């Protein structure tokens, strides 16, 4: 018995460990709040350590992950993943071209305009020669934020950088501030053009969905205009469009985010997310 005393003591203590595990483990994560669901995006400083102090490698791999995994995502937890991923890439390498391009296409047009614009703003700062980030940013400011003055300022930055179509960009900024542009038509033209330029079939499909979403908004606004000219009063509730037979059904949004009727006009519904800033 004495010979085995040490072994028995060790096993007893191990049994105490086992018991304590059984008592504390009840099958759920310790911090239920922390497990939001969705994919993990590692924060920028930690990624830097993971990739041996190489922020460019971190940015590239994260951007590839978004390009591959983010493709079929639209709303809910996956959108939060997209937002965080684009933000982290933008912190690691703000100049990353794929990141600002995809970030604009997926975030801004997918209902997270604030975050898309943040990625674009950083890209504008870092890529001091490139006219596209300020162009996208200006268009977004006009279309989503309804801020023509800021849009014109940023479009002027784009015009300063542009090599061949500086005049067109300046004119666009002026027309925006003069209120001469129907924002939804312009946005549709620009989205369609962006889709035509893309050589990635997945991205084309996603941009196509965003264009359909925008066409739905244009249909709604046209129906509203028709209603108001026909009845001579402003539309009080969207359901009146159905009742009077101007619309058979409301347009469906392929992104499943939908539209909203605020202060007498139709808008694209924004995605609401709680994220650490």
């Amino acid at each position, binding site marked *: 018995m004495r010979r085995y005393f040490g072994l028995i003591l060790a096993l007893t203590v191990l049994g105490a460990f086992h018991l304590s595990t059984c008592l504390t483990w009840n099958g759920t994560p310790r911090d239920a709040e922390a497990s939001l669901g969705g994919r993990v995006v590692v924060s920028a400083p930690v990624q830097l*350590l993971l990739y041996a102090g*190489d922020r460019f490698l971190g940015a*590239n791999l994260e951007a*590839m992950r978004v390009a591959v995994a983010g493709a079929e995502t639209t709303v809910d937890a996956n959108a939060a993943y997209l937002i965080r991923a684009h933000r982290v890439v933008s912190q690691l390498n703000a100049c990353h071209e794929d990141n600002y391009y995809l970030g604009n296409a997926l975030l801004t047009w997918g209902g997270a305009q604030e975050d898309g614009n943040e990625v674009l703003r950083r890209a504008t700062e870092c890529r001091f020669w490139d006219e596209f980030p300020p162009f996208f940013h200006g268009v977004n400011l006009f279309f989503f934020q309804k801020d023509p003055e800021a849009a014109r300022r940023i479009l002027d930055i784009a015009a300063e950088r542009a090599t061949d179509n500086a005049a067109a960009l300046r004119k666009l900024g002026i027309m925006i501030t003069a209120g001469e542009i129907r924002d939804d038509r312009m946005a549709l033209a620009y989205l369609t053009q962006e889709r035509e330029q893309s050589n990635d079939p997945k991205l084309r499909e996603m941009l196509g969905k965003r264009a359909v979403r925008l066409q739905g908004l244009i249909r709604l606004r046209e129906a509203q205009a028709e209603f108001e000219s026909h009845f001579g009063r402003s539309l009080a509730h969207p359901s009146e469009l159905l009742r009077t037979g101007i619309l058979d059904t409301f347009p469906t949004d392929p992104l499943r985010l939908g539209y909203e009727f605020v202060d007498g006009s139709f808008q694209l519904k924004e995605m609401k997310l709680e994220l650490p800033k």
Partner: protein
Amino acid sequence: MSIISDIATGLRIALRARFLSLAFWFLLALAASIWLAAQFSGRQPATVGLDVGFSIIRLVLPLVIVLLLQELFVREFDRRYSLTSLTYPRPRQLFFIGRVLAALVLILLLLALAGLLVAGMVALVGQSYEQTTQVGMGGPYLTTLLFIALDLFVITGVAALLSVVASTPSFILIGTFGFALAARSYAAIVDLLTTDAYLVSNAESYRHSLALLRYILPDLGALDIRMTALYNTWRFLPSDWPLLLVGAFAYGVAFLLLAGWILNRKRFS
């Protein structure tokens, strides 16, 4: 005996330790990863290819340095070859300088080969798509490679010191990589902590104490000037680059001198 024969011995030892096959596999992996990385980029395949090429070079070549120095110093002491290679009339400094120079020659040759390969691969993947921002494969690319060479020189200095004092081979690996990781990342982490302050409690004081590292570690992260080549503009070259170069070079030389001094007084059992 002249230093040339010491270098030649070092080179022969490295080649016998299958350095050529190591170099071949490294170059193959480099080419493959550039090609694969470029496939994932929609709008800038050449830039991403070049970027990943730099990353692989900066990740793998320190490992090659460690393996070389393990072969040239630690194995030598382990196998008691030092009983002949350090016999009395030959100064130990000569042995040390010869071996370090042999390692540097091999590593710089490998870097030059890798540079050629990266340039070729980038030209290849760049053919398929006309980028709006071209990569700068001329002056910016060569300068970036030179800065990487200096980075590798500093790491060689630290690895040489560790291989002279270490009693186990794995300590060189861990020590050198720990040094490279810390020296390359601390400056960028200090920057990023301003944006991600929620990561650590009391981020501000954490940032300040981390910034103290700059007095004991060279800022190897700042030697990474690849953005000049990626986006073909000198604007991304840090304005204090001459000081950076001098500082890093001095750090590497100091560590080599220290290693030589320690080897000179080392007692072999």
